[in-house]
């Protein structure tokens, strides 16, 4: 018995030593030549693997010596993590989330003037965030729950009493970046009174993924969706249909940013340049149906052109939207 215990202890310590030693060696080597493309980089992303993988796989092909570690969670969760870790950051790059979130947490990110910034439709004067995609949130209906004739045609009619009893899912802006974009965009078009009457018909979910899934699984009849995911679901034949309402479609700009004092700034910049490149954006359009934020990449053919839509962006800061929403969502 004693021998077994002794053996286990020795094994564990050896394993620990190998792990620890290995890590330190790597770190030391990279600090000498931060531009050389090898080492490990950590990316925080609210995007699921269906969005990140196509682009990062190409990056891996190009730079086989760079190991990519992903942490995926909601935008809010990741920003809270970054905030908690700011004295000892673990991440190098935050990829995904709307520009408003990046600006609210500007102190977590480092300014970096990417050579690709000039090719974008819009850029951050402080060079902290770099645009990735333009993303609309059309209405999503579940076709098992709703006949063709009952599809809503405008956002405005969602406040009708016929949708009562929680037939609509809405992501809580306090808990979700997408929820904020939707609520603030709708406020931009119809004002807070509209949100108040809309809320009477809504189940407020504590995150956007829960809202998307609720419609997909038929738990509610109507919700809102990020158009790339909606397009994918339609294409795969799920019982859902996206509806770009005539009166209002909310829209946000998705971005990527370099984490302040991240462990691998050299690699982080390289990854950002790559994510912003024409090549990566072409993949984004073709494989994951996202509208590129670059001037020189055309939007995906399966999505309606932005010019045909009544677009509304967020126009109040998170603090204001959250406080007002909290006030009416008792």
């Amino acid at each position, binding site marked *: *018995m*004693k021998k077994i215990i002794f053996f286990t*202890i020795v094994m564990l310590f050896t394993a620990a030593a190998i*792990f620890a030693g290995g890590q330190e060696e790597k770190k030391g080597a990279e600090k000498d030549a931060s531009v050389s493309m090898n080492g*490990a980089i*950590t990316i925080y992303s609210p995007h*699921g*693997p*269906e969005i990140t993988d196509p682009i990062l796989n190409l990056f891996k092909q190009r730079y086989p010596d760079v190991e990519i*570690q*992903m*942490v*995926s969670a*909601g935008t*809010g969760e990741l*920003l*809270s993590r970054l905030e*908690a*870790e700011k*004295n*000892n950051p*673990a991440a190098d790059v935050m990829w995904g989330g709307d520009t408003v979130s990046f600006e609210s947490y500007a*102190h977590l990110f480092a300014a970096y003037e990417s050579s690709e910034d000039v090719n974008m*439709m*819009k850029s951050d*004067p*402080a060079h902290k965030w770099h645009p990735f995609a*333009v993303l609309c949130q059309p209405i999503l209906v*579940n076709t*098992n729950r709703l006949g063709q004739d009952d599809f809503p045609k405008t956002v405005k009619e969602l406040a009708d009493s016929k949708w009562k009893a929680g037939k609509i899912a809405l992501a809580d802006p*306090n808990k979700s*970046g997408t929820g904020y974009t939707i609520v603030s965009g709708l406020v931009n078009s119809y004002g807070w009174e509209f949100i108040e009457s809309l809320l009477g018909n809504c*189940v*407020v*979910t*504590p995150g956007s*993924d*829960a809202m*998307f*899934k609720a419609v*997909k*699984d*038929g*738990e509610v009849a109507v919700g809102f969706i990020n158009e790339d*995911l909606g397009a*994918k679901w339609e294409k*795969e034949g*799920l*019982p859902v249909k996206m509806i770009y309402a005539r009166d209002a479609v909310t829209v946000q700009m998705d971005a990527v940013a370099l984490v302040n004092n991240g462990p691998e700034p050299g690699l982080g910049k390289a990854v950002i340049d790559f994510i912003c490149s024409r090549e990566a954006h072409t993949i984004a359009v073709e494989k994951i149906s996202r509208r590129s934020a670059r001037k020189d990449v055309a939007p995906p053919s399966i999505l309606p052109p932005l010019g045909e839509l009544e*677009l509304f*962006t*967020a*126009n*109040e*800061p*998170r603090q*204001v939207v959250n*406080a*007002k929403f909290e006030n009416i969502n*008792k």
Partner: protein
Amino acid sequence: MNFRWKLLNDPWKIFTIIAFLLLTLLVVVSQIWIGVSSFQRDGGSFTVRTEKGGPRLLLEEETVSGFTLDSSCDGKYLVRQKKRMLYTLNGKAPGKMDITSLNGESISFMPDDDGGVVISAGPDQLWISQKIFSGLFEKSSSQQDLEVVNAEGKNITLQYNAGAFLLFSDRNKLFTLSNYLTFLSRSRYVTAIKNSFIVMVFSTAIAAFFGISLAYLYARFKMPGTSLVLTIVTMASISPPFLGAYAWRMLLGGSGLITRFLGLNWTIVGMHGVIWVISWLVFPIVFLLTYDSFTSLDHSLRECSMSLGGTPRRTFFFIELPLAMPGIINGLYMAMMTSFTDFGTPYVISLDLNVLPVLIYKEYMSEVGGNLSFASTGSMLMIFFSSLILTAQRFYLARRSYASIKSKQPSVRMPGRIRKIGINAATAVILLFAFLPHLTVLISAFFEWNVGVMTSRFTLGNFASLFHSNLSSVGVTLFTGITATFMDFVFGLGIAYVIVKKRYPVVANALNLLVMVPYLIPGTVLGLGFILIFNQPPILLTGTWVILVLAYFIRKLPYSVKSVESALYQVHSALEEAAKSLGAKPARSFFQITFPLIIGGIISGATLSFLQIMTEISATIILYRPPWKPMTAVIFENTIDAGADFGLASAMTVLLMALLYIPLYFVTIKARKAKEVRIESI
């Protein structure tokens, strides 16, 4: 001198001190941080909207907290904090305002790292930042930065982008009871507390009904396949984290497999579903503990009752049930704690149901600054309620004495034919429910998934991609799991020994209490506490494997200590004294005499710790950071994301279950020892 020599001579004393210090650091200190932050809040904040073409300021009323703002007739705002007059805000021109201090101090200012400005007047500070909104593709080149253009005495002039929102906040922490008041007065939070209790009471009741009835039938009647049933229930007691709950939604949700097959208009999503799913999560605990206490009853008491004319019903309610009560109460207690602290089920099986663990997680993770104060307040309340439940359990058990001399002979009867069929049918249905999530996950791991929907194509691809890209997680889980189990093993053994055999005054009792505290702390809360204390020098551990190991170690230590403890109570101390009198040193007498006698209890305790550690999720998702990403974190990520495929998560879960069933088979199922774990004496 003499004292020191004595201290060093007894390795147990040194061990006791080390264990005591470690537990204090990990349990008490981290919880104190949470306690303190639950009594703290930021000084306050408010947001003002400015005009593009005019000087007016417009307060957003809903955003005001901690301050009072009154507008005077000339468009000025008077800012007060707790009745103290602090500033006036006065819009002078588009993009220009004056701030005047009213507390008698002159104003100074400095820029902060967010592109904002901090102004201070004596002890009072105000952080100011601006938020500009421009259209999607508008060039935002000609922005006016936020800056102080003029400062003299009690007055400063602030320049900003006309039309921007100005965010004012006092970030100085102050001590207050207001977090608790707000928590207990805002309906959303009160509902969360109420929901937690409803879920706990009803799911424990359902589990108790099925668990106790079935356990009684199996303890009283000789049924073929009893050991098979026990095996399956024991296997069901380890639930596939997270995905187990989602399996129910896949089957019985609004467009679940069964719902669609039967053409029902119903969904499991909602409070009723949460209660139902948790019932089956805790059913095995109730069943196993109750079964043990029914089988260990002294059956002669039952026979006495019957021969004195008691009907079987009377005998059951007045003799057998009361005698089995300690085991039943333990089972119910563990079931209540599990359902009270369960995070995964409500998260998956409801759209908007707020229960405390989910609320805490969401408050902490919320996007705007993560409301740590409220998360901490919720945590403190949760610990408070858990302690109440524990106290009730202890109180109930302490009032009764159940000692009886056990007869070895088991008291089982042969069931009649009809009864046998009945029991078998009930067993089949109950086991199906308890094992349904496991089966669903197993099946779904072998089919192709597409955009979150299972197809009918058989594949091994899920496992292939697991081995291709996520194998390191398996290594991390095994490494952290085994290390933490080993620590639980060493400290569990030592602490139990100190508590039972050494009984040092004060310290032994304190240790006994400390060990039980982690059992009361929900994983989410423990994770939060660890981040708070280990995220800064001198002990910078966040993001390392050490913090995971420590969290696992401390969370599951009670299982280890309690099982060794019950084994130790059966070893008479005369044995060690004999060795000592023959000249053996304490260490030698322990390792050669006591240790071999309690090895069974030690192994079963370690196994239980191991099983719990490997499936731990609530602390893990707060604490993990790559490259130290355990399997449960991979499962969580691949279940939660709307676009992710479940294939990988299912395959990962199957592998995790396989890793757990192997040790479970050798220890529990072969020897049926793990049942001895009782969280009893505190």
